[in-house]
């Protein structure tokens, strides 16, 4: 998670306008999800893998590891779709009889399951592309330009920043506890963990008060105004984007 965030600031695509990366990821995501066949999602997956590994220069191993994260979750949900239990053995493609009940896979279900599996992987790869190439702060700026309500973008700014502040506090407290053997037994672990949480809540409260004070002292009056970083707008990137999306859309239409 932390590495993922760090790559967003150091990848080879960091100079590309965030709006371009955002539209690329989002349009491809929609095209991928709208696809009636598995071909588009597979192409999308390849496209994003190429973008992430070749264009953004992120190590392939790291990308594979990231793709494995949702895999268990995906497999479980996909298996529940593929398998069914029924009193009659009719219509099963693969079946096993257990005490009068038939447990097995129906062929159409299998197809649906495979579709969903591949589509999800394709969609996840789009999101990874965005997360790995574009800092959240830049995404927020683009969202602001797209007239997403200020309350949402400002909350995102603060939440994103304070995730890290609190994680650091939690890590420090935990380290301090472990160094005094706070996690040596199950009982002490529970106790230490509950202390960690109450300490953290206390800090959250304090920090939010302090943050308000420090912002007020810099003339904050209810609206967070910051400079947006300037990126060169590349017409070429938009052209490439269009060139990539058109065949995918056509493929979707043909597959209907």
């Amino acid at each position, binding site marked *: 998670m932390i590495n993922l*965030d*760090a790559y967003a*600031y150091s990848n080879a695509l*960091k100079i590309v306008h965030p709006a371009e990366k955002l539209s690329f990821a989002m349009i491809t995501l929609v095209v991928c999800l709208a696809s009636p066949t598995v071909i588009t999602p597979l192409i999308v997956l390849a496209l994003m893998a190429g973008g992430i590994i070749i264009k953004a220069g992120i190590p392939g191993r790291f990308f594979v590891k990231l793709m494995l994260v949702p895999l268990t979750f995906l497999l479980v949900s996909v298996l529940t779709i593929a398998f069914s239990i029924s009193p009659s053995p009719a219509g099963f493609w693969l079946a096993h009889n257990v005490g009068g009940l038939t447990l097995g896979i129906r062929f159409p279900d299998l197809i649906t399951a495979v579709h969903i599996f591949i589509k999800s992987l394709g969609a996840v790869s789009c999101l990874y592309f965005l997360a790995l190439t574009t*800092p*959240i*702060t830049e995404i927020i700026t683009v969202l602001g330009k797209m007239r997403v309500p200020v309350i949402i973008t400002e909350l995102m*700014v*603060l939440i*994103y*920043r304070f995730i*890290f*502040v609190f994680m*650091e506090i939690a890590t420090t407290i935990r380290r301090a506890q472990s160094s005094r053997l706070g996690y040596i037994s199950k009982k002490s672990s529970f106790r230490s963990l509950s202390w960690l949480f109450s300490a953290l809540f206390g800090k959250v409260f304090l*920090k939010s008060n*302090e*943050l308000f*004070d*420090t*912002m*007020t*002292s*810099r*003339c*904050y*009056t209810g609206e*967070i*105004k*910051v*400079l947006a*970083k300037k990126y060169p707008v590349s017409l070429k990137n938009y052209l490439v984007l269009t060139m990539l999306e058109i065949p995918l859309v056509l493929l979707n239409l043909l597959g209907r």
Partner: protein
Amino acid sequence: MSEVILEAVDIEFSYPDGTNALRRVNLQVKKGEKLAILGSNGAGKSTLFLHFNGIYRPNSGSIKYRGQDVSYDKKALIELRKKVGIVFQDPDSQLFSASVWQDISFGPLNLELAEEVVMDRVQQAMLDTETTDLKDKPTHLLSYGQKKRVSIAGVLAMEPEVIIFDEPTAWLDPRHAREFMELLEKLSQKGKTIIISTHDVDLAYVWSDRIAVMHSGEIIANGEPGEVFLQPELIKRADLVLPWLLEMHGVLVQKGWLSPAIPLPKTREDLFSSIAARSERKLSAL
């Protein structure tokens, strides 16, 4: 030069939990001066600073800016905060954005300056604090000292007249601490009024024009560095120690290496040169 720019008059303040953090604090800050506030942990330094910015309102007493009582209506507060900037003790509670550049631009943008002006100021503040290289890094990947420098830049970019630094050199490495002191010197030459709080008596002694000593919510001494440090009971009461220059000077005088007539050294060079003179004389006498 001796015009009073910021003043605390008989300030009393208690936190909601009953902690009596300030007790009848009186302090005058003169325009263009370099004021150091010394005091042990919990003495009330940070609390006093928050009053100078109108963040806290005293239970009784008043804050004056250029001789005028600060009225706590919205407009007056904004005016005060434009003129008086604070760099807080903990950069993690000052940096609200994950982007260094955006965080620094926050203050000047609130002053309703044109975007180009803000950009220039951000650039200049980053040069002054050597944070230009950190521009594209997220704040959470910075070291503590780097965060501190970014938070300093965020206030410098607002170009206030009075700049208050709450423990600016804690956590800075020796090089950056020295460079920070040079930056303070530069700001001071531009006519800014500077207040710092610190636990570093050496730094306070060498740098400041005036020292105020706080102890459990009160100002117990206020004067030129030489004067303040010549009161041993006071130093003890405030849990301070002597700056090494003065301590060394004292020992050398006591053991007869220096004549008591030699003025207090203000820099290490002062001290070293007076020692060299005496030894040479002694050697030639042998």
